[in-house]
């Protein structure tokens, strides 16, 4: 094949993919203001995305908080700054690790599930069947999922924050010899609304990314079982990368506004 032709074809494919994604994203977002809105489906998705992710998110948050305390102690002890462990654990969990860990865990759980479900629906023509029954598949399938994820993720992250800080407390009091009341006192004194809010705002963005990627890859999967498999993989990989990249950008924005 001609070298230039292959460059041209790759470029066109890339542009086509970008265009397709943008149209999909715009239709998905605008679906929230175009009735009908399927409220019962949103509730059902909140259960599936939010509630059933609680065990996974809770456990990872606990261990992350614990290990964070242990590692910070090592660094802080070199400068005799052990008393800062509670503060650093708190800020680390609220601002970064709570949302990021919860986001990545939910990406693995939920983006995969959504991509597999919608991918199977695509391959078995169920999505086309929705259209023939005068129901917009974007409004019926995509909008409830992203709305549910945007609602669920901040709640999940809030719970992850509490459990993560508790993990740090357990590690500090059990392994590092901190006194429980002093640790808690330091934590409560350091607590501030900006730390909490910035983590929850991030969580809402991550929820949107997870649901949209799962839906997008599921919606456009093709070619039977293998296609659904690769859609699932792409959904998890892409949403994980986007979560980390978005996290970096949002942290920069928050820092810029001293939020």
């Amino acid at each position, binding site marked *: 094949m001609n070298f230039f032709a292959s460059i041209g074809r790759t470029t066109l494919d890339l542009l086509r993919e970008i265009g397709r994604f943008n149209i999909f994203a715009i239709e998905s977002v605008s679906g929230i203001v175009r009735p*009908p809105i399927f409220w019962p489906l949103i509730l059902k998705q909140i259960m599936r995305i939010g509630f059933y992710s609680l065990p996974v998110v809770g456990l990872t948050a606990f261990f992350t908080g614990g290990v964070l305390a242990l590692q910070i102690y090592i660094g802080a002890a070199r400068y005799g700054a052990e008393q800062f462990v509670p503060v650093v654990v708190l800020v680390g969990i609220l601002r970064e690790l709570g949302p990021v860990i919860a986001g990545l865990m939910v990406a693995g759980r939920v983006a995969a599930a959504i991509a597999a479900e919608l991918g199977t*629906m695509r391959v*078995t*023509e*169920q999505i*086309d*069947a929705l*259209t*023939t*029954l*005068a*129901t*917009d598949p974007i409004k*019926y399938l995509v909008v409830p999922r992203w709305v549910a994820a945007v609602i669920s993720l901040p709640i999940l992250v809030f719970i992850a924050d509490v459990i993560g800080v508790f993990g740090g407390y357990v590690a500090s009091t059990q392994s590092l010899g901190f006194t429980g009341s002093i640790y808690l006192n330091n934590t409560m004194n350091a607590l501030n609304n900006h730390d909490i809010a910035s983590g929850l705002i991030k969580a809402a963005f991550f929820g949107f990314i997870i649901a949209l990627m799962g839906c997008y890859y599921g919606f456009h999967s093709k070619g039977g079982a293998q296609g659904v498999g690769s859609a699932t993989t792409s959904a998890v990989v892409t949403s994980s990368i986007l979560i980390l990249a978005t996290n970096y950008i949002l942290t920069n924005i928050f820092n810029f506004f001293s939020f």
Partner: protein
Amino acid sequence: MARVSSTAKVELRGVKKRFGRKVVLDGLDLTIEPGQSLVVIGGSGTGKSVMIKCVLGILRPEAGEIYVDGMEATRLRGRGRDAFLRKFGMLFQGAALFDSLFVWENVAFGLIQGRGMQRSKARDIAMEKLAKVGLSAEVGELCPAELSGGMQKRVGLARAIAADPEIIFFDEPTTGLDPIMADVINNLIVDTVRGTGTTTLSITHDLVSARKIADRIAMLYKGKIIWEGPTAEIDHSGNPYVDQFIHGRAEGPIKMEVKA
């Protein structure tokens, strides 16, 4: 939306659709009169499903016009498109039942979600339509995964006729069924559709089925209709492509593209 002075229920004019460099529909012309049952035959991969998806707006053709009741349909959006889609019912090749819903909810889906009917009323209609395709009310309470292929097809048929659409599309209604079940489905299609004034477009490569349900047969080859005529004339079409297809011969003008 231009109106044309035509009595056709569905009319396709010069419809072209390609995927990448592969041309699937190459200026397809087809007319279906009201109340007519037209069957389009053709080999696998000749674009039969693509044709139906273009009419429904699931796929957007690059060129050509599609008229339904004299209204141009390819540029419809929003509410106009919803109203347009309510004219149609469709039976999919694999039935395409929603596996997260009960059988009766599948049948009632278009009534509840598409038309905003109350659940209890929609349920009654769903049960009535299930009875029409020979399924009991108990089946209505099952999940689609618990049904055999033939029963799934029947549920798919019940779903397609649930809202009494003006136009019904059948995508390979008998593919994958044993000959007896295929005949049951053919009979159901004839029974549920004939006499109701419904216009139907079926695509199939099953000639037994085509002869049974068609008023007229058209043959699709390389993205164009190469022959069309009343069902009785298919045996003396004088068209070598049609002859090869209906007799199932490997030798003839149609060459199977073995190399993809």
